């Protein structure tokens, strides 16, 4: 271990830590804030909310997105909702319960203090979003409605039909555009960050490529914030948007930022199964559907009848059977593995027998079709467009798909990475979800980090650099990295191989899904660790990127992203090999009970794995942050 991992968790009782910390942190006075330039990469929930909030505070902010508009970030696709411990429904919710559920749901692999702060801040997020005009669902009395979600026994999820992420992102985007209008935030669209610049051990700027004309430019600032999302696209087929990638945080990792728990990936239980070999991505159906939908498979392995012709006695509602307390609302990892077991044992449904049923007939009979339409109509329409089937009459078919990555850059309580001045927020960091994220918690965390946490913690770092100019962007440290980026880009264009970038991406995805997906074992991971570098070498010598750097070149963009996925994939496998236990989304076949339930090993693995780049993607160095649980008692997660 060469890194000093200081999580900087404040002293005091858990409920007071955040308040104490805010008081103890140094501030930058309002008239000095404009002297600090902060560069933010990414405009999803975390990036847009951070840029808007820091702009409001008076900092000089520049924000970069590779999209044509900040509103396109993939936060927009979140459907189900956002958690907050408002207890508007008098069902026993509290900040402590949300904290407890999140730590438990994360299978005790997250940092208590961060999670408690998240639960505290959740209340403010709902207030903020409502004030911005986010049209959350309401009851007839005009007050906010809630629904329940996986992993919780209270209704604490706020939602806006099936498009909560869209409405929250548009709220954050509007706040961001207001600051752009005021000149507080400068917006760079179609601009992709390709490296972080570190000088004297501090992050001092970034190097960015303009995707339209290929210009590579240096940008300097007092602090750099990465809000670039997760890396599920390492699996090729995932619920992520096509352009979602690991490049920004991976390149930061190569410049010294530790990467935490890369193997903690979440497979979402309710996605539409793949239909053919040309499938380019998988579409998620909101987990909220599990509130009213019942999951089942035919009891008979070779069932040939249509779903509606199978009588109740021939159906196996396996989640309700195995987990009576939580039923269809068990957490995502549990639900996903149960579906996989059913399909693997021959009970799969659909033309390719690669799904399970999610059935709404009971809800329609109980509450009427209108009630179901009101809650889920847009999801049902989406399902219909993709499959040509009508879920009001025929059960949906679903199957798990890679969705969210709990792993990410290691950050301390201030959300700063191991590189001073470099921050990671939202899905790009590892901090709050442990080994498994609960539904409706991603939106909460992205906005918590961006609206409330980062604006309160960044001042403490900046205070040291008052009246210190940012390193000029023509400093040799910048020009050197600019040159490196330019030559890397040229490298892809001159390889002149035979295969497309997508071909390599698909092959990599197959390896990862098979050996580092929902279920992992030692021999599979070893095989992946020998196959991936071989394929990567082939990629380097045999990839074909046509066209030029100087005009929009989408193959070129993808080539550099896939290149980084190859390195990340190795880190994921190394991490999965190291973690000889099953916890949350990480399931090692060697570590399961006789009934196939995950077996955690708190004695040996209650730590965060923070991997340090060594120059060899297959041999990163492990640093451990041990996790201390002072408030939540470690128990075997049981949803039975």
């Amino acid at each position: 271990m060469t890194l000093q991992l200081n999580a900087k968790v404040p002293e005091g009782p858990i409920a007071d830590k955040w308040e104490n910390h805010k008081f103890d942190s140094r501030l930058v006075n309002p008239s000095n804030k404009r002297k600090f330039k902060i560069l933010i990469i990414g405009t999803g929930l975390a990036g847009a909310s951070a840029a808007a909030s820091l702009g409001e505070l008076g900092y000089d902010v520049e924000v970069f997105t590779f999209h044509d508009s900040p509103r396109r970030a993939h936060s927009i696709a979140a459907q189900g909702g956002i958690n907050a411990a408002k207890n508007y429904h008098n069902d026993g919710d509290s900040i402590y319960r949300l904290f407890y559920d999140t730590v438990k749901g994360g299978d005790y692999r997250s940092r208590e203090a961060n999670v408690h702060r998240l639960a505290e801040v959740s209340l403010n997020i709902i207030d903020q979003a409502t004030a911005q005009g986010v049209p959350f669902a309401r009851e007839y009395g005009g007050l906010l409605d809630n629904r329940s979600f996986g992993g919780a026994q209270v209704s604490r999820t706020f939602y806006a039909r099936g498009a909560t992420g869209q409405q929250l992102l548009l709220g954050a985007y509007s706040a961001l555009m207001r600051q752009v209008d005021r000149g507080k935030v400068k917006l760079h669209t179609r601009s992709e960050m390709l490296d972080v610049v570190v000088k004297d051990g501090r992050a001092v700027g970034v190097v960015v490529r303009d995707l339209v004309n290929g210009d590579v430019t240096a940008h300097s600032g007092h602090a750099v914030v990465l809000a670039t999302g997760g890396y599920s696209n390492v699996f090729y087929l995932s619920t992520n948007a096509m352009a979602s990638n690991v490049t920004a945080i991976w390149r930061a990792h190569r410049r010294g930022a530790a990467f935490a728990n890369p193997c903690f990936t979440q497979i979402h239980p309710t996605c539409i199964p793949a239909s053919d070999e040309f499938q380019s991505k998988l579409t998620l159906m909101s987990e909220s559907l599990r509130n009213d939908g019942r999951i089942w498979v035919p009891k008979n392995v070779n069932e040939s009848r249509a779903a509606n012709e199978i009588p109740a006695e021939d159906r196996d509602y396996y989640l309700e059977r195995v987990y009576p307390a939580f039923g269809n609302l068990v957490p995502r990892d549990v639900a996903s593995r149960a579906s996989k077991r059913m399909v693997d044992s021959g009970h799969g449904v659909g033309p390719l027998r690669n799904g399970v049923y999610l059935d709404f007939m009971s809800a329609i009979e109980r509450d009427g079709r209108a009630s179901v339409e009101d809650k889920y109509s847009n999801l049902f329409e989406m399902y219909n467009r993709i499959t040509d089937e009508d879920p009001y009459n025929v059960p949906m078919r679903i199957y798990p798909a890679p969705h969210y990555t709990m792993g990410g850059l290691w950050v301390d309580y201030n959300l700063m990475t191991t590189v001073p001045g470099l921050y990671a927020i939202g899905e790009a960091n590892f901090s709050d979800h442990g080994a498994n994220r609960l539904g409706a918690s991603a939106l909460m965390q992205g906005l918590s980090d961006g609206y409330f946490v980062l604006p309160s913690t960044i001042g403490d770092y900046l205070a040291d650099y008052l009246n210190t100019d940012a390193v000029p962007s023509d400093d040799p440290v910048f020009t050197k990295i600019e040159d490196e980026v330019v030559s890397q880009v040229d490298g892809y264009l001159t390889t002149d191989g035979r295969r497309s970038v997508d071909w390599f991406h698909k092959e990599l995805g197959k390896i990862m899904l098979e050996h580092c997906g929902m279920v992992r074992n030692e021999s599979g991971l070893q095989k992946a660790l020998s196959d991936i570098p071989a394929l990567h070498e082939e990629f380097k010598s045999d990839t074909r990127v046509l066209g030029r750097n100087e005009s929009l070149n989408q193959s070129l963009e993808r080539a550099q992203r896939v290149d980084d996925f190859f390195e990340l994939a190795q880190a994921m496998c190394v991490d999965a090999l190291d973690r000889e236990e099953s916890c949350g989304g990480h399931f090692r076949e060697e570590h399961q009970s006789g009934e196939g339930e995950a077996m955690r090993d708190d004695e040996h693995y209650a730590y965060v794995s923070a991997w340090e780049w060594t120059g060899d993607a297959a041999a990163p160095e492990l640093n451990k942050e041990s996790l201390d649980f002072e408030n939540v008692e470690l128990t075997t997660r049981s949803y039975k």
Partner: protein
Amino acid sequence: MNITLQVWRQEGPDARGEFKTYQVDGVSDEMSFLEMLDLLNERLVNQGEEPVAFDHDCREGICGSCGVMIDGQPHGPQLGTATCQLHMRKFEDGASIVVEPWRATGFPLVRDLVVDRSSFDQIIEAGGYISVDTGSAPDANLIPIPKGVADIAFDAAACIGCGACVAACPNGAANLFTAAKISHLNLLPQGQAERWTRTENMVEIMEDYFGSCTNHGECEKACPKQISIDFIAMMNADFVKAKFKNRRLVSQS
């Protein structure tokens, strides 16, 4: 399925563009329209021809990145469906399909099927927000909002900013886009404080980039979220009122 495509190819804003014909065989009817373009691109790369550039990202019909003219219709023939959600089963085997970028003065061409829609961001920048600094919000349940109002506000807020409304309009007008955002905010109690300045400012920026609405109604038909042109009427009414209200405020100051 076998498909013949006529695709608009143009290397850059100043280059000369032209239609090129491609034969795409072996298309599955389970494919989305964009997956069919992926297949074309994979084959083009293998043949040594540069792939067709097109914007796309979430492929779930929500990010608003994608959108092309398919046989002259924005997002193609299926009502209320973005290009990424359109599936090949909606086409006949042997069909010939013309694929073009959005054509509008407000959306300059970048390359092939990709256009520049940053004018939409400028409209939002002009007032498509409620001014509430982080941390200053009251409790979310302080102001009850009747369910009906919240629902209509949501209908307007569902806009994904794809630009199909502009592409569909014979005048290249962006009234449906602008009206959707104005109506979303103007309907809600939180949006009242800035209602009149918002309306006037956003409409003025809109007119800098886009043509004028003459009530063709093509935008509503093209909209993948089926946003109603009633919102344009609402915007127009508010715009007229804003002209008086904003003037009165000036005279008072």
